């Protein structure tokens, strides 16, 4: 039996004060999960942390968080490494500048518990993306078995971002791909979603849960956009497979 049900993994590089609302929201959400009986591991991954960020995350107020240092220069490699060192049977990633709704961890954990009981291979996402700061936008995502789920959307946009709670097994089986901006490839979260679906995992959303994504001008997603990156060329997106993409899952 795993020591923890859930590892909450926050990745940081140069974030300092902007991580304050993130950490407060995550703590509030962890509190709800713990109240519901879930055991939660708190893990912060510092990747090539700037001196300011390093000092910020080592402050006493955060002493309940385990710190792990990396020097990848790639947030997705950090996530892969955090899966390796995480002790929870599920893992939930949060960027250090984003926020989560208070009900996210508890509802997602409940959904994964149901999936476990039913023997389903499920990855869970918040229902709503609430984009704020540099851009303002709100959108909701469909479940893969939703009647409006359309595989072709994955050619041009990512239904689900990296903000997921997944069984550790899924993350070990399908690690995030390498960032390769030099060759025009980015969006490893998008790639991961396609690859996990291809591997038989069903992505679902949990009603009334939200990720608050702080859009900053120099964020990774902005870098991907400005560089006009592509997600890698993936077999499940082939012309003779796309119509069935995700249909055989779950």
């Amino acid at each position, binding site marked *: 039996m795993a020591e923890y049900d859930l590892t909450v993994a926050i990745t940081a590089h140069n974030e300092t004060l902007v991580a304050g609302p993130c950490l407060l929201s995550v703590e509030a959400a962890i509190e709800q999960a713990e109240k519901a009986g879930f055991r939660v591991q708190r893990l912060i991954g510092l990747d090539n942390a700037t001196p300011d960020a390093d000092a910020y995350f080592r402050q006493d107020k955060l002493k309940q968080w385990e710190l792990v240092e990396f020097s990848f220069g790639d947030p997705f490699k950090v996530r892969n490494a955090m899966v390796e060192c995480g002790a929870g049977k599920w893992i939930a990633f949060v960027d250090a500048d984003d926020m989560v709704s208070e009900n996210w961890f508890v509802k997602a954990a409940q959904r994964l518990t149901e999936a476990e009981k039913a023997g389903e291979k499920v990855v869970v996402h918040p229902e709503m993306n609430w984009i704020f700061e540099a851009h303002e936008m709100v959108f909701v995502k469909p479940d893969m078995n939703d009647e409006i789920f359309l595989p*072709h959307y994955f050619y041009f946009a990512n239904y689900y971002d990296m903000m997921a709670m997944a069984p550790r097994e899924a993350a070990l089986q399908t690690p995030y791909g390498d960032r390769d901006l030099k060759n025009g490839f980015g969006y490893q979260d998008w790639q991961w979603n396609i690859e996990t679906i291809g591997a038989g995992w069903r992505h679902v959303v949990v009603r009334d849960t939200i990720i608050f994504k702080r859009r900053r001008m120099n964020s990774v997603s902005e870098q991907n956009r400005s560089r006009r990156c592509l997600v890698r060329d993936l077999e499940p997106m082939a012309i003779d497979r796309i119509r069935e993409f995700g249909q055989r899952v779950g």
Partner: protein
Amino acid sequence: MIRHELDLLKGSGLFDAAWYCQEYPDVRLLGMDPAEHFLRFGWLLNRKPSKDFDPDRVPGLEAFLQQGQRNPLVAYIEQHGEGGVLLKSRGASNGAAVTKPAGVNGKHPAPKPAPSARPSGPRNLGAEQADYDLLVTEFDAEYYVRRYQDIARSSMDPALHFLRHGGFELRNPGADFDTKYYVNQNPDVKDAKVNPFLHYLKSGRAEGRQPTPLSPGNPHYDQVAGMLGFTPSELGDRISGRKRDIRERLMTGELGEMIAKAEKLDPLVKHVWLAALDPGISPIRSAGWTQQMAALHQMQEQAGWRRAKVAVLIPWVHVSGAVRIAGHLAMALAEIFGPDEVIIVQTENSEVQFPEWFPDGARHIDFAAAAQGLDGANRERLLVEFLRSLKLDHVFNVNSRTFWNALEHFGVALSKSMKLHSYFFCNEKNIYGDWVGYPVRMYHKFADILDSVICDSHFLANELQGRFLVPPMHGDRLRVLSTPIDVSMEPVAPARRPANQRPKVFWAGRFDRQKRVDVAYAIAAAMPDVDFHFWGKQTLDKGFEKLKKPDNVKLEGVYQKFTDLPLAECDAWLYTAEWDGVPNMLIEVATAAVPLVGSIAGGTGEVLVEGLSWPVNDIEDVDDYVAGLRRAIENPVEVRADALKLRQVVQKRHAKTAYEGAVRALIDRETPNG
């Protein structure tokens, strides 16, 4: 907002903060002082200050309403003082009937019917009354007040503002109606100078007019509906229903509660509230993505949902030497891979004038039609995703502009999925005499990611090698493929005409600057005893129209096939061009063994061989052309013998089998790419 107003309201007994928060949960979620909310927004949204407040029972209130007071209720309290309290008790004792909700979106009603603070809007609007009453059935006052701050600051009923001004100022009455779009799409509405939303409610909706760019009636939206197995209206209903559901949960449910809690941690969260009134519902979130999905699906359908080994990208299929060569290339590829493995993608327009140029059984994709209206970036991305979905081994570009543009951002990534090859043809001169064309603009930028660079002439290959100091590792990628000819064409017998019949010289080409029709006319004018037959039509510019056609020139129009020409009557072929590659037509003339007189430009010297034809080095040296033509006319036997030798040279160099072999060598070449 002045403190005085807040104090007046709170002290009047007319405002019940607890009831107000309970009745309008968004107030609590927004974290505002309830009385301030009422004064700033609630009044404008027709909300009641307390459960028992009945505006119908407030004598004289209507007068304040019509006077345009900042807040008629506050003005009323100011004037009546304690009377406000008395009125409240009187209202309560009389049962305080809840008035009909107004100012909510009837089509997408607000989550909970809101008791109104006022009668259902103004009642003395005269001729406007009927329009007002119709408008408020679907007008989204919450959205209007949130979106337009000047309305929030004003004292005016939002619906009345929209009726009188907002609609004409192209403001939106709610998230589901884009006034500017509606007016732009419907010139009759603009001309009629009516409120566009009212027009939609009265007749536009029944006529099937679209309220927003992304709604049923948009062909791409409708296509996506079909992809999902719905009719457009079924999908429309589902999307609208989800938006209503989200809004309701934001206003009254757990979703809204989560926003309120997050806002306490970072107030920036609440700045997004307006966007939340019109949430995106994936996958129907943007016009661009919707068209891209529809277009990609359409092209994949055309491709039969099957992979392919190779794609040939062309701009169009009309009179064009480059596209003719693309046909030869496609034929060779069909021989190598089988026709079904070859995909022809037509990127710039849908015209197909010569389908016979391409192999039977190859799949033809009309990208130009599918992508019509897409802007540059979305268009390029569409092409890239389509090509990637085919899981191609090779793609050959033959003058597709969209493909070149796509390489700018996606070329490196694309080169990791498939081998990229591109043809280059001669540069051209613009009207200023400057060299333009893909070799000038694209070669140096993309040669690194191209597996092969194909030129149709040694002249161009040498020019590129010289200009860019191409190193050996690149030199191997730079190939010259001699365009194949139809070797079955027999040599034409020498012209046999009676002594009294005038000699004939043929000329063919586009009537444009490149082909120097002016020089050809000058030659004809210098040989009045000879008839000149011209085939072709004007294409790029209109300079030709100003030229005076000599009397001995006969314009024959466009020919479909070279072999349709009456070559047996031809004494000599005249070719004029200021710049060129190795034009197909010259190859065909040489293969037919028709005596050739032509200008040396770019690659034409690879056909206009000295001693076997009459090359002219100075494009404007009319006397030199005339000398060559006179020789051909006066010495038919000798000149025809030279032409037959030239035919042999050309047949060998431009043999179909040699071309196929060269294409196969490109395909088979091992490269470190990929």
